[in-house]
């Protein structure tokens, strides 16, 4: 997968984290994270629980600031522009950087179709061809065939794996340049996991993807590059190793990375 590392596409964005430090209240949980997410690349974030992967990924679309007491230092550059700059609107950032959560969270009061179109309704965007948008979004999330006959059923009538793919479709309908995924498969069965992984591979043509995963095989299957996060002895977490997925898994520089990817701890 290394050869695709530098491919370019118009729609996807280049994302970069520079010197990111994060606090919850007085407690610092991330220390000096520097990562580059080139366009159309899939980046896996791995590391033991509690090392700050979710926290980091939430800083990439300014969801972190929704938590009272959130503190931050550093820069997140989206196509070269710092999203934390004064005067930048968090809502604009989130329009370009979509997010899929660990637990499927379809809107319970809406039907499947309404869920896909929820982003448009919520942001007041107009799209002349709703039906087409619903179909393409659901197709891209590889769930179209399963739901095409029941688009008006409540979203909660779907299985957990289908709900998660619906949430992906919901994000895709907004046509984000970057898609963040925080352990999207941790609540799913193997079959659904497989489908989501296929979806990710296809999506990489059109957008930049950052995915947090606990599953080493998954990281190797879907990602081009991998960052290994670690927080030791209650110190703030940080990135121990960052490189192409092949390099991180097969020739890790840091012995701790070696231990982790070979299942010795975490």
């Amino acid at each position, binding site marked *: 997968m290394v050869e695709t590392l530098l491919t370019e596409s118009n729609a996807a964005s280049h994302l970069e984290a520079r010197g990111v430090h994060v606090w919850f209240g007085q407690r610092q949980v991330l220390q000096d994270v520097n990562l580059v997410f080139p366009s159309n690349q899939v980046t896996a974030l791995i590391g033991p629980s509690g090392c700050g992967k979710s926290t980091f990924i939430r800083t990439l*679309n300014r*969801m972190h600031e*929704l938590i*009272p007491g959130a503190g931050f230092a550093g820069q997140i550059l989206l196509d070269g522009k710092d999203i934390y700059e004064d005067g930048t609107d968090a*809502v*604009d950032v*989130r*329009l*370009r950087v*979509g*997010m899929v*959560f660990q*637990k499927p*969270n*379809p*809107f*319970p*009061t809406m039907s499947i179709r309404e869920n896909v179109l*929820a*982003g448009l*309704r*919520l*942001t*007041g965007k107009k799209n002349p061809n709703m039906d087409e948008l619903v179909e393409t979004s659901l197709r891209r999330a590889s769930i179209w065939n399963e739901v095409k006959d029941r688009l008006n059923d409540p979203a909660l009538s779907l299985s957990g794996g289908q709900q998660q793919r619906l*949430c992906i479709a*919901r*994000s895709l309908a*907004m046509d984000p340049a970057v898609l963040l995924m925080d352990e999207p498969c941790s609540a799913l069965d193997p079959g659904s996991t497989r489908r989501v992984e296929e979806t990710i591979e296809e999506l990489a043509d059109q957008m930049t993807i950052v995915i947090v995963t606990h599953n080493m095989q998954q990281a190797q299957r879907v990602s081009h590059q991998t960052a290994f996060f670690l927080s030791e002895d209650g110190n703030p977490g940080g990135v121990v190793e960052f490189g192409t997925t092949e390099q991180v898994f097969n020739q890790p520089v840091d012995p701790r990375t070696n231990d982790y990817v070979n299942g010795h701890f975490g």
Partner: protein
Amino acid sequence: MTATQVQTSTMKPTNPWAKRNKARTRDVVIASLLPGILAVVFFFVGTALGATIDPAVLLIIGFLPAQLLAAFLVGRKYYGRHGREDALLIVVTIFLSTFVMVLLLSVLWSVISAGALALRPSFILQNSHYISGTTSLEYGGAGHAILGTVMAVAITTILTVPLGFGIAVYLTETGGKARGVIRTLIQAMSGLPSVVSGLFIYSILVLQGWQPSGFTGSLALLPLMLPTVSRVSEEALRLVPVDLRNGALALGSPTWQAFAKVVFPAARSGLLTAVLLGVARIVGETAPLVLTTTYNNDTNLNPFNGPMAMLPTFIFGYIRNMYDTSIQRGWGGCLVIMILVGVLFVGARVANRKKK
């Protein structure tokens, strides 16, 4: 009734003790029934023999000690040391719980039975024009007061609900800085004595030249309804998972859209509950109305002008008359209020249940 509880709660269905279980069941039944039977027999035999036996005294110094002793003995025999204590705990708990329930059911029953005597179509449909404290119940009714209550409560609700929801949204959705202060103040307001709310409206409006009317009464009810509405709706909003809000915000939604299209629909039945409980809180509130409205025996359909009767002041006025018929009118009014409260309450339950 008491000692069977001992058995069902701690009995283990193991077979080897089946024989003993039988003996135990027998003793437990005896211990739970005998004191009561003895007390009843004692009461009737004693009364028949011409003694005056006070049921309250018999209950406290006859039945209760006997029941405690019986439970104590059985508990000790079959459950050892802790059996004695447990038996006492169970007897006391059931005795006190029954006492409370009897009191509370007595309230309900009094309202229903005494109120039913006054309740008739004319009581709902007529006003009290030409009615005095001694007029027969055939004539006149509380229709004007029911209308007054409905209008005044509607005005209070229209004013309070947006405020209450606004406060709840401030506390849960916008991450407002003054959350702690506002919560404390709402808590303080929920302890506001209702009569003080009446004094407040009197001092700020009536003393400044406003005529007492239905509207002044509505305003006096507002500080009493506001804490209920905002507290219950805050809880309802808080039950909406954070994940849903985050899901909406992550799509690039503005906060108000996330609230209007995701959080609000998910919390709708809880918010309805908040409104219904708020209305139930004020519909029978009397003291503030006594201070801020004026009696009226006639129907007044304009809450902004002139005296307007409302159910609580209607009841209060008739009870104060102290005639038998006027007190019966009071009971009738109480029944109407209790029906209103009951309907609101059941509505709140149903709304809440639908969500789950």
